[in-house]
């Protein structure tokens, strides 16, 4: 699409349509540069500036509200043109020449990009012009048999399980298994026959007492049972001094009650 500076009387709508067909001012400038039919390495900025300003002027006659970037570029190019037209020995002219070369360089860069895009597009593109295997085969096996474990995790898991296990168990008060007087009566009754002489009260306590509390309770129960059995003469009790050991031995039975003590 060559933009016609040679067609100033082109219909207005066509002009606007053309402007909208470009991707911004740089795109239009590149197209103008191309239409010079010169080597892109030798872009004449002054020529394309004139053409650009003509196009913008024409477009503004059709519609005033032209996008800002088109107008900004137009203003800048007007400034550039004024610099380029100054006598060659002035500093401003040199500034203009530098700016013009920078613009030409940008246009060349954009031109190169366009050409490369075209070059890429002309290559045999995978999925368009050449096709890879539609059903690739995967010969990879994934072996998940190996375990990733370590001792720290094992011990940590144990702690977690134990702590949770303890927390989740419902609280149950431990039943007190105290040695009752009834228990002591039974035990004393059984044991007395095999005790020939005075024996310490402690000897009649059960074997499986677990703690000091249980032990003291059993001692108390056994003493109570001893008193009970001493009353009907089944056994005899003695304590030689205050807080001294309590001893007991078998009595002669209920009939013996009231008889004087005889240790013969």
């Amino acid at each position, binding site marked *: 699409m060559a933009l016609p500076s040679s067609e100033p009387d082109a219909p207005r709508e066509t002009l606007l349509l053309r402007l909208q067909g470009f991707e911004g001012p740089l795109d239009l400038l590149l197209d103008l540069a191309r239409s010079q039919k010169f080597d892109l390495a030798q872009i004449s900025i002054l020529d394309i500036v004139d053409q650009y300003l003509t196009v913008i002027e024409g477009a503004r006659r059709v519609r005033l509200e032209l996008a800002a970037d088109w107008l900004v570029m137009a203003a800048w190019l007007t400034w550039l043109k004024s610099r380029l037209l100054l006598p060659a020995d002035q500093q401003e002219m040199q500034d203009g020449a530098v700016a013009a070369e920078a613009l030409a360089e940008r246009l060349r860069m954009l031109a190169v990009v366009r050409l490369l895009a075209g070059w890429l597009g002309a290559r045999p593109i995978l999925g368009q012009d050449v*096709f890879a295997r*539609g059903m690739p085969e995967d010969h990879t*096996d*994934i*072996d998940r048999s190996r375990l990733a474990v370590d001792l720290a995790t094992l011990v940590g898991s144990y702690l977690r399980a134990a702590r949770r296990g303890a927390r989740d168990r419902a609280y149950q008060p431990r039943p007190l298994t105290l040695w009752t007087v009834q228990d002591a009566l039974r035990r004393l009754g059984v044991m007395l026959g095999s005790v020939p002489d005075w024996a310490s009260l402690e000897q009649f306590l059960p074997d499986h007492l677990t703690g000091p509390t249980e032990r003291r309770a059993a001692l108390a129960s056994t003493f109570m049972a001893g008193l009970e059995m001493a009353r009907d003469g089944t056994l005899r009790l003695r304590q030689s001094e205050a807080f001294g050991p309590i001893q007991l031995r078998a009595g002669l039975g209920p009939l013996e009650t009231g008889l004087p003590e005889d240790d013969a």
Partner: protein
Amino acid sequence: MTAIEEDWLRLAEAMIFAAATPVTPRALGQLLPDAADTDAVIAALRARYDGRGVELAEVGGGLQFRTAADIAPRLRRVIQLSRRLPRVAMETLAIVAYHQPLSRAEIEHIRGVALSQQTLETLLEAGLIEPKGRRETPGRPTTWGTTTAFLTQFGLKDLRELPPPEDLLLEPPRPAEG
């Protein structure tokens, strides 16, 4: 029957190669010129690939290229991915390690929750635990203990290398009676 043109072979080869599903002889026939005998083209193509690293196979009524059966095992690459034990399995394993031999009911008592069959099977399959006889109590439950593989896996010389529960807990759990 006409001779098979090289062009037909190329076309058939490219189509079967690029297709995402097996190519039916009918679809192939539509691609080939009318003059071509589809079956003959397929036969010629199969002959061309005969004995090569890739062969033309007929799968589910369609044609596709496939790695030659004798080559496939040599292409096989095994990628080892380390698998983590699920949390439940790890806890169960830890309890067995510390309290072995113990029954399932005892494991459940310590963990405070029921033990799924799947967890037990995971540990069994991994070779980390094994049955250690039966307990002579009602129901004669199987008791479980850890294996030599367990020691190897965790880099332990023997079970005494496990840190004792007393070092870990103020009040170590006791398996329930039974």
